[in-house]
């Protein structure tokens, strides 16, 4: 295996791993933000 192929394979593996991590971070952030929004909405609701 030539050096450039090793670089390519390592880059692909690292990129896939960190992209999955980034997507997880974005999804968790959205979930947390939505939960906080619901909590704030519940607090602000005035009972009739």
């Amino acid at each position, binding site marked *: 295996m030539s050096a450039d*192929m090793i670089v390519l394979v390592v880059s692909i593996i*690292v990129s896939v791993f960190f992209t999955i991590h980034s997507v997880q971070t974005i999804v968790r952030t959205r979930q947390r933000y939505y939960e906080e929004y619901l909590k704030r909405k519940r607090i602000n609701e005035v009972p009739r």
Partner: protein
Amino acid sequence: MSKTKWFVYTVILGLIPLLSRLLIAALSVRDIKYVSAGDLLSFGIALSITNISNIENVSATDSEWKTREFGISITFALLLGIVYAISLFAESAPRDFSSRNILIASVILTMACFFHSYSVLDRSVKSGGFS
């Protein structure tokens, strides 16, 4: 740093070498490459260094997350630097390295770095902001 500031100050400014190369390649009568691995890698390095600076300035998030993202940004900067050095070798010794493979590796790494930078900024902005 807001998302607009990140986009204007980091993404647009980081893409200037790439955009200017595209413009020159489109206007020139000579055979100039449209995309260069060096321009892409410098954009990726700029993103990861901005990331490190952003993570340092975040105040209200947990320290474990900060350490993890800091480590990933350092890894990205190191990898991009290594691929940049190899791309320089590939220019001087084209028989030893395939410049096509180096270009593909730099595109993939830079895209992953962009996603990572966006995810860090997204969480920083939404969970308390900066100090």
